[in-house]
């Protein structure tokens, strides 16, 4: 009788290939990603987990976490009080205002780029986009440094669109995120069609491997290896009962309603389930913040969904005790212009914007940094994206000073070599 691992295991070949190509080609040794991951995972405690909530398209800071009441640039969004004395949020996020004591708001971020693609890349990796190398995302670095928790679930899950994602960059393809296109549908096609017996499925896998041997030998390389690795993972997951974690429909109706019957709400609920089941890192994307037009009519709905889902996620993680070991980050690539344009919208604004931290490793109930009177530039305690990412890594207990050598021989630091903001760390 064949086992799945007999069929798909050519892992040794792959590792040998990487070692050889890196050594032969560039005179350096590639990161021993696999070995390190394995060692890290042997620890008894599961360590810290990470949920990244990425607001794609650049969320307006003025209308959410950094309002400037009484200024002309504030537009139609009013400011409301929060649980932190003297701190106000935009009226679009009342629930988050009510749990502001569980949040740490950073209001003094700025970057140099107003381009979505470059901004998002920097945000996710801590490095500027280059032509010569793809940097790993913070999610991949986190799994790299802390290892997987569950052996039968993917360690890195992305709820959303993987196209522009730096993914695992130059790290081992084992760290690639598994994308979930629709959180309400979870991970699909995990079972063979009903007509196909398990035995016959195994026959098919074996046949495919034999038929492909010649081709794979001819074109060894990292792209091919990524596919081979993921074929092995796919086969492994197909046999796993733990995949039930991907099915949010088993949650009680009340929970589904509390998170919200919308994509982002479902994504946050899925993130909570996956973290609970032992996924190291979950990123949930929330599209549609690029409001060049009619921002005051479009924003309330989007911000309302954010308010509902994000606040529910924090409360739920708190209730289940997971918040103690899970870091939740709300991030966006840049802010939006204080000046309201002729289409009643706000344009790209990297000069000052806000991101948030909550949960494990974070000193919450505070605002760090300050923007100027119109939220146009940073007035106090400037935070770069590199600083922000380094702070995330520190909160997760990851070494941010160590150099990791990429296949091109260059050293990289987790977080991008920024300064951790100690005032934000618990």
């Amino acid at each position, binding site marked *: 009788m064949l086992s799945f691992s007999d069929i798909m295991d050519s892992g040794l070949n792959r590792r040998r290939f990487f070692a050889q190509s890196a050594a032969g080609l560039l005179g350096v040794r590639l990161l021993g990603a696999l070995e390190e991951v394995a060692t890290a995972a042997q620890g008894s405690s599961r360590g810290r987990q990470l949920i990244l909530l990425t607001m794609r398209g650049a969320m307006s800071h003025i209308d959410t976490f950094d309002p400037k009441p009484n200024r002309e640039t504030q537009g139609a969004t009013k400011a409301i009080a929060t649980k932190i004395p003297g701190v106000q949020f935009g009226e679009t996020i009342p629930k988050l205002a009510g749990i502001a004591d569980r949040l740490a708001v950073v209001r003094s971020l700025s970057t140099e780029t107003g381009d979505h693609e470059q901004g998002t890349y920097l945000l996710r990796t801590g490095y500027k986009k280059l032509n010569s190398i793809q940097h790993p995302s913070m999610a991949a670095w986190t799994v790299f440094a802390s290892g997987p928790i569950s052996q039968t679930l993917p360690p890195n899950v992305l709820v959303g669109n993987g196209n522009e994602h730096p993914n695992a960059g130059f790290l081992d*393809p084992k760290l690639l995120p598994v*994308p979930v296109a629709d959180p309400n549908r979870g991970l699909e096609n995990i079972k*063979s069609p009903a*007509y196909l017996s398990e035995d016959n499925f195994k026959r098919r896998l074996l046949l495919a491997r034999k*038929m492909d041997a010649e081709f794979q030998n001819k074109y060894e390389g990292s*792209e091919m290896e990524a*596919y081979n690795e993921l*074929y092995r993972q796919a086969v492994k997951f197909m046999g796993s009962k733990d995949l039930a974690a991907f099915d949010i429909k088993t949650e009680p109706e009340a929970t589904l309603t509390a998170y919200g019957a919308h994509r982002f709400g479902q994504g946050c609920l899925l993130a909570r389930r996956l973290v609970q089941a032992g996924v190291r890192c979950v990123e949930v994307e929330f599209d549609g913040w690029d409001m060049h037009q009619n921002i005051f009519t479009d924003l309330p709905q989007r911000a309302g969904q954010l308010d509902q889902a994000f606040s529910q996620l924090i409360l739920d993680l708190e209730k289940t005790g997971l918040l103690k070991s899970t870091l939740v980050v709300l991030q966006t690539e840049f802010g939006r212009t204080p000046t309201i344009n002729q289409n009643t919208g706000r344009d790209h604004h990297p000069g000052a914007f806000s991101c948030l931290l909550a949960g494990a490793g974070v000193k919450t109930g505070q605002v760090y940094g300050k923007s100027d009177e119109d939220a146009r530039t940073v007035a106090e305690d400037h935070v770069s994206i590199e600083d922000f990412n380094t702070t995330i890594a520190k909160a997760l207990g990851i070494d941010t000073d160590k150099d990791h050598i990429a296949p*091109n021989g260059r050293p990289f630091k987790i977080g991008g070599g920024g300064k951790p903001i100690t005032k934000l760390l618990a």
Partner: protein
Amino acid sequence: MHFVRLPLIVALICLQAAPVLFGFQSKSNSKSTAKPAAKKSTPKPGTTNLEKVPLPDAILTLPKAPPFKVAQIDRTKRSEIEKAATAIDSIIAKDLTANNEKERPALKDDLFLRRVYLELGGRIPTYQEAKVFLDSQSGTKRSQLIDQLLESPDYVSHFYNYWADILRLTERPTGNIFLEPYLSYVKESIANNKPYDRWVHEMLTADGKVWDNPAAGFQIRDQGMPLPYVDNTVRVFLGKQIGCAQCHDHPFDDWTQKQFYQLAAFTAGTQTRFNRNIPEVKNGRGMNAGDIIKVARDKDPMSKLLGPLQQLVNANTFAVNFADRPLKLPHDYQYSDAKPNEVVEPKVLWDSVPATAAKANRREQFAAWVTSRSNRQFARNIANRLWKKMMGRGIVHPVDDFNDENKPSNPELLEHLTDEMLRLNFDLREFVRIIAYTKTYQRQAMVHESFDTKPFRFAGPVLKRMTAEQIWDSLVTLVAYNQWAFQRPTARDLAPMVDINWATVQLMDAEAAANRYSNSYFPSYYNQQLQKLCGFEGQLLVRASEIPTPLPLVHFLRQFGQSDREAIEAGRQVATVPQILTMFNGPITHIMLKKGSVIYDNVVLAGPRNAIDVMFISVLSRRPTPIAREIASDEIGSGKRTEVAYGNVIWALLNTREFLFIQ
């Protein structure tokens, strides 16, 4: 060759005894499955037994004629093209020799066949097409095939996908903007082989509503974003990234914020909203958009027509027009060469506006400068882009980042290709034809690691994973006799269903139009009709170029990396676990194991003796190696039912990396 007709009657007789699904182990004997396919219902995706869902009728018959006309290739120019190809080869040979690198070996016929079908036609060849080529003894069969593909609808479909990724083509950027006519204009421009400079010039200068002048869609695509419009246009047609300079002087490149604004000043007066100040509208008796919607809502707030009516009325407010308007620097302009809020005079980034456009309006001046023959970067950019399309890597790479730090790997080659582009008067298809004729293109592919910093010298093309569209169209080829069950609508289709005349429109006219629209191109109705026509488990079995985009993330095409059509060239070929699960277990893989699919019919028709060849040629466009033949025949002789074994072999071939990659 594309529309070779099968002896269908013979095929049908042979199929009588076969089961409905390869690999399906029915408990009853095979005869009971020979009855006609079950009546069509609308099954919920994923919940039904695949063997019971019938294939849609629309795909089951070979079409009698090509789906549309494509401009003919001039075969008398073959020797001229060959000469041009040789010139390219010798430039590369010189570079390789100078750097002690060796050319890759020449491609064998079968790999050549697969590559050109995929890279010129966007799909693998059918079994019959592959057989014709592999069996041909003609000494010029490669050139013949290249020429034939370049004048096929497959070429148009594939290059449409290529441009759709670059131009972010989507039918509805917002619910109220209808760009269908623009999308089919792009397709028709490719089919007619319109000279590229003229095509771009049309898009940069078009006025009016998109169904009156479809090229106007290029401008409307960036509606409300006049500055990103300039950034996108320069990036796509001139290969430079000046976007950073929108907010501040470019950190690494030479561009200043002032230069960005000077360039943007040319097009600042472009409006994308209908101009109601023209006399016939101003003095006409037509109602305006807001009033129509308000009156209709007051009349019957529950009317089902309200949704379509609002969309359609709003869609009619989009029309491009131009009037000179000054552009001011931002109020927080921080450099000493000008003051905040100062009006900037238009100025091009290099050279000058061609004399022929001196008296034209600013928008036309901008277009004239971009597309001018003397603006060499315009020709260089498209030459480099198409070289990358064919070879897998730009001479300047990435192709949209020409700057002083990002040097061409072979400057002589780049300038030569630029000269060729100019010599061909921007005939993109002839340019692609020359590349396809080169020995360089016809060499074995090589692995190129993205972190490898050595200049890439084109000893052969780069090994690529197929694009999402190539995978999809290849699977459609294995399933559908008719790959064109429907085609994207054109301006001629759309205009009568949606147009309203602002000079005369009354509520009645708008309601009549809304009625027509709700029963034609209103998305929920339209998509439902398409599903009825050729849907299988919720996916439309038709060429990717015809399917409305952006598709939902769960769609096969998105899973394999099709662009969301938001960012320029956002299509990716990155591996993910869900892709593999889809290939293992998804409905699309299993369609071709069904009776009535092209591959199923071909395998059954071939009979046991030839079945292995048919399966290999159908999926991988080559005959099996002796070892693979043995493995396959062991499987078939394994004591399982033959049809089960066929299913296993086809499934296995589809789940090889060889299937997903282009060697």
